[in-house]
């Protein structure tokens, strides 16, 4: 069985039901399925296909059509530089993927090297069923997509929507908040959305009163991908007292694991709920979260060595510290590695440093996490320069080599970078001093 069997079934059962809305255009399930079949005739069969995502119908056609063709979808960030696109295309060109592989989603590893996470159709369906059970997606749900489709947080919402024959509303993101509210003005009864913590901060800070006016229309909001502050959780509960507000534990490697409705009068900080029916959580003796179940990845594309480090005996070993509380709920306690989570995107500081160091004027640097009023955590580059170089020149140089979310927000020139006695960058020193 492939995930698109649900889509074909919906085209037969609910041909006139609105499947997707984008701007002022919409597609019924019948039209969506026909668009997928038309698209499939133009795409390759039985191989991995790399493409840049777009927030529109074209993405839906391409994504589903690749699966229908027995191909593997490899969606990349829309602004991924040509160099990065070609790197991925080359990595997957002759790749043999396990039977049943649907997607390869690329994330950043601790070294900055791209990791292609292979996800099966079985995992996709299990993710969808987990979300339906955990958050109450129904046939009447109208889910507003605000993030990019190459990220598991947004991509995974397609699954419960298609399984339930519900409606997806695609927006360009939270840049134009008016578009977000316009989506909530559409003639649907039960709205839901996923917002990264920084998007929730934007809404509360700049549109709190307006959001309150939509309270009766919002069935639920899910957040995740980065820790949300307790004060924002409380403000959101106060703004939307009747909505279910979920904090979810998920990652590209583990799939959707657990979720917690924090609008429960307790509003527990750092709580991520109980594992859903397709998932199991085990805390290792070192205090790290490990996950089992149908949602977990099949492995890293073309990297058996890295796969073996993370995936053993059908268990994913994460870099997140956590514990299970007395109510059986997961509590997150931080990360073991140097990866920085900024606005829901994970960035390896070494990747940013490596690019910055390739700029002739920069002789040494470190990329660190710094507090930010919207993102909570933003990237900061502390650098040593041999000649005059402006912040703008550094930022533009990094932007020409990496995706936008990897470009530091803050810059500080220093005389030297602190190193340990054996010459390594002293990350601990900078963590304690930011």
């Amino acid at each position, binding site marked *: 069985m492939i995930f698109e069997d649900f889509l074909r079934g919906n085209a037969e059962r609910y041909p006139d039901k609105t499947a997707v809305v984008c701007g002022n255009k919409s597609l019924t399930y019948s039209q969506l399925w026909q668009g997928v079949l038309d698209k499939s005739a133009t795409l390759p069969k039985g191989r991995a296909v790399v493409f840049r995502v777009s927030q529109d119908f074209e993405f839906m056609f391409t994504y589903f059509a690749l699966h229908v063709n027995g191909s593997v979808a490899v969606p990349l960030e829309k602004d991924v530089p040509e160099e990065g696109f070609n790197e991925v295309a080359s990595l997957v060109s002759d790749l043999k993927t396990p039977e049943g592989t649907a997607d390869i989603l690329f994330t950043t590893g601790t070294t900055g090297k791209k990791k292609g996470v292979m996800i099966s159709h079985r995992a996709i369906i299990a993710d969808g069923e987990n979300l339906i059970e955990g958050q109450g997606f129904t046939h009447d749900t109208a889910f507003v997509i605000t993030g990019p489709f190459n990220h598991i947080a947004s991509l995974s919402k397609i699954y419960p929507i298609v399984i339930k024959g519900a409606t997806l509303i695609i927006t360009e*993101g*939270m*840049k*134009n*908040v*008016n578009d977000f509210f316009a989506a909530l003005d559409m003639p649907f009864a039960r709205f839901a959305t996923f917002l990264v913590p*920084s*998007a929730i901060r*934007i*809404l509360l*800070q*700049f*549109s709190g009163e*307006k959001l309150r006016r939509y309270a009766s229309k919002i069935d639920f909001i899910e957040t995740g991908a980065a820790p949300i502050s307790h004060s924002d959780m409380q403000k959101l509960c106060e703004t939307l007292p009747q909505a279910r507000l979920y904090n979810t534990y998920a990652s590209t490697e583990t799939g959707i694991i657990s979720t917690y409705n924090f609008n429960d009068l307790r509003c527990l900080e750092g709580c991520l709920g109980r594992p859903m029916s397709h998932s199991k959580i085990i805390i290792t003796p070192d205090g790290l979260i490990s996950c089992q179940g149908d949602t977990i990845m099949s492995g890293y594309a073309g990297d058996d060595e890295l796969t073996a480090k993370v995936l053993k005996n059908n268990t994913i070993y994460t870099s997140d510290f956590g514990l299970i509380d007395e109510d059986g709920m997961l509590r997150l306690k931080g990360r073991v590695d140097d990866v920085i989570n900024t*606005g829901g995107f994970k960035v390896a500081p070494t990747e940013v440093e490596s690019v910055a160091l390739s700029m002739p004027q920069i002789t040494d640097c470190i990329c660190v996490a710094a507090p930010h*009023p*919207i*993102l909570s955590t933003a990237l900061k580059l502390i650098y040593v320069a041999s000649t005059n170089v*402006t*912040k*703008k020149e*550094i*930022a*533009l140089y990094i*932007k020409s080599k990496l995706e*936008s979310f990897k*470009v530091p*927000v803050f*810059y500080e020139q220093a005389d030297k970078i602190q190193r340990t006695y054996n010459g390594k960058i002293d990350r601990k020193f900078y963590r304690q001093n930011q």
Partner: protein
Amino acid sequence: MKEKILSLLEDALPTVDWSSDFLFSAMDSLAVTTVLAVLSDEFKINLDSEDATPKNFMTIDSIVALVETKLNEK
């Protein structure tokens, strides 16, 4: 006024090309929010997300005009 706003925004968002005639399309949600936050803070004006329209954020001049309108409303 324009020089002051330009200097503030160039410092906060160094990768944005402020001479563009299509500023809004060149920004992401963080950049738009940063503009709102920086200008609200500096000029003690009440800017909210609904002010961040493609029209108001089309050029640096339209951003300056937005700030001037808000200052006059104070």
